[in-house]
């Protein structure tokens, strides 16, 4: 039983007004105790999917199963999940204590148990000293902790978080990311977070589902998502990537031969054929004044264009005779300023490993 996924989403769709497909035939499984992220641009259906888990939206088709129980006819107030809202929705007419105790009062728990569990939950989010405060006397970050405590105190099987960090400033957001991961480890509850911020998803989640236009594009752990994106959308959405258009034909043994004008003909491992993109991440690109000899490299001559200096690395754009420049992140590995200064117009050999190159179909 404990090996069974805590959430099973089976072919779930949501249509608005009979035609607009907000969620389009999604299949997903979330494992017990996982920190799972739904990532995608706005309007991709991730929030609708989360609201269907909470019960605020009814799927047009398909099935949502939580902990082995079909949720089709279960009202939001009867589901074993709790939600942290984007706006926090901390009740303004109740003190912190009353807010956190609300859910337990609804369960008609004895007053003593409520008191103990509220104190425990407030300590968990480090708000023990503010129990008597009213929400309007608190900062946004503190109100968010109240919302967290209020949901966690119910000991849900799954905690749903709808863009929980989007209203916080950058510094607080970073601290809160670490805090959420710590919290999830402490309580051991499955977290499902919705976010449009890829760095947030990458740094917090065990697994991420990337969504676009109502469909799941890829489900994978962060590193796999970054290094082995399933398609152009995922590659482009997660991090920075260079894409060079080309044509691919099968070359046997799980390899394809790609013809891409400035690079010539290269044989790479991959399966996609026809119109493809050769994709390489900027930090996997090296530069040299001399032509590299290693046959395991893809190389091209490039002229320095724009340069952006970031301290630990420089973001250099090379013109390689394509419409868009090739982006390379060059780490500043020594204190030799001369060596790591790029001037516009200078010519270099730009190269990267064949094994670092992805062949992406549509």
């Amino acid at each position: 039983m404990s090996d069974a996924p805590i959430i099973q989403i089976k072919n779930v769709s949501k249509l608005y007004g009979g035609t607009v497909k907000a969620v389009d035939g999604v299949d997903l499984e979330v494992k017990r105790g996982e920190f799972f992220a739904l990532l995608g641009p706005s309007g991709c259906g991730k929030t609708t999917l989360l609201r269907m888990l909470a019960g605020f939206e009814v799927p047009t088709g398909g099935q949502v199963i939580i902990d082995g129980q079909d949720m089709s006819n279960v009202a939001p107030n009867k589901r074993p999940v709790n939600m942290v809202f984007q706006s926090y929705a901390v009740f303004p007419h109740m003190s912190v204590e009353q807010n956190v105790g609300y859910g337990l009062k609804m369960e008609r728990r004895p007053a003593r148990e409520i008191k103990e569990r509220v104190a425990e939950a407030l300590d968990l989010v480090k708000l023990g000293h503010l129990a008597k405060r009213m929400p309007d006397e608190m900062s946004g970050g503190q109100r968010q902790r109240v919302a967290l405590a209020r949901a966690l105190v119910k000991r849900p099987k799954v905690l749903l978080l709808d863009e929980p960090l989007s209203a916080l400033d950058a510094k607080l957001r970073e601290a809160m990311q670490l805090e959420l991961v710590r919290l999830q480890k402490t309580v051991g509850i499955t977290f499902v977070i919705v976010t449009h911020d890829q760095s947030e998803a990458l740094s917090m989640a065990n697994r991420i589902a990337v969504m676009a236009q109502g469909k799941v594009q890829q489900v994978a752990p962060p590193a796999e998502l970054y290094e082995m994106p399933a398609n152009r959308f995922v590659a482009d959405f997660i991090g920075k990537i260079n894409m060079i258009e080309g044509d691919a034909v099968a070359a046997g043994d799980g390899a394809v031969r790609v013809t891409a004008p400035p690079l010539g003909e290269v044989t790479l491992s991959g399966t996609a054929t026809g119109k493809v993109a050769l994709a390489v991440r900027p930090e996997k690109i090296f530069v040299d004044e001399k032509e590299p000899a290693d046959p395991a490299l893809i190389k091209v001559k490039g002229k320095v264009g724009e340069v952006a200096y970031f301290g630990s690395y420089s973001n250099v754009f090379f013109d390689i005779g394509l419409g868009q420049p090739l982006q390379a992140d060059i780490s500043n590995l020594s204190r030799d300023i001369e060596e790591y200064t790029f001037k516009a117009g200078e010519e270099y050999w730009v190269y990267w490993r064949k094994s670092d190159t992805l062949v992406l179909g549509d």
Partner: protein
Amino acid sequence: MENWKSSARAFWVSMAPPTFWLVAFFIIPLSLIWLYSFSSKTGIVEITLDWNLRQYARALEPVYLGIFWKSIWMAAATTAICVVVAFPVAIAIVFSKPTMRMWLLLLVILPFWTNLLIRTYALIAVLRTNGFINNGLDWLVTHADWLLSFVGLGDNMLIGPYRPMALLYNNTAVIFGLVYVHLPFMVLPLYAALDRLDRSYLEASLDLGAGHFRTFFLIVVPLALPGIASGVIITFIPAMGSYLTPDLLGGTDSYMIANVIASQFKQANNWPFGAALSFLLMYATFFALAIRAVLMRKEGRGDRR
């Protein structure tokens, strides 16, 4: 942008008409009435200002206090019924589709486009002995009896004959009429308050295990309290000063304070006493507003963000 207050001429040009209007048609008449209330009637049309308190003393006699009390009671009943009726209406409007919402709001406002007198006569047509309600029920009973005659239970053996109910010319008719007239005043502020309410509060309450019933009483009502207070005040005050509705729909014992005031100015030709009663009504109104101000200040603490 230039501050209009800094230009004295612009200030006076723009402020003079409303100031004149207020002074000529509000402050002066009101002051006259105030002076009347301290005067004595010395002839059929003569009134002498002698700064006596006899009119007020008379206004506080049990007969008139009873009518005051009755007015307050009827207005309170009207307000209470309005809250109970208007809340579901306002909720229905807030949760309807945006296109539908406009039409529903229009339906609420529509009665304002018709004269109160005409609407009240329409109510009389509905409520009187041969009105729509009594005739409609009579029709139902007669036809039910006719249907029962097929199974041998006709000729009023089981039901009927229908005896018309006395729906008009009593306190119930007055309260019915007052509720009908004042309902929009309650629906609109409630609608405004509920419309402002962030839906995620309701969802959070459901999410935390509360049903719709507890969500309504623990979340919706407290958060809509400013709107409820506004609705109560703008329903209660005009309801208490109602003249036409009790006059047309009420019976002999349905007199409210405005009817007494009117009769003092008209039939009894006792302006000083009518003036004193008017001012007592106004003081009662001020008192109601003061209570609201205190309540709103209390509310204000929780409402600031």
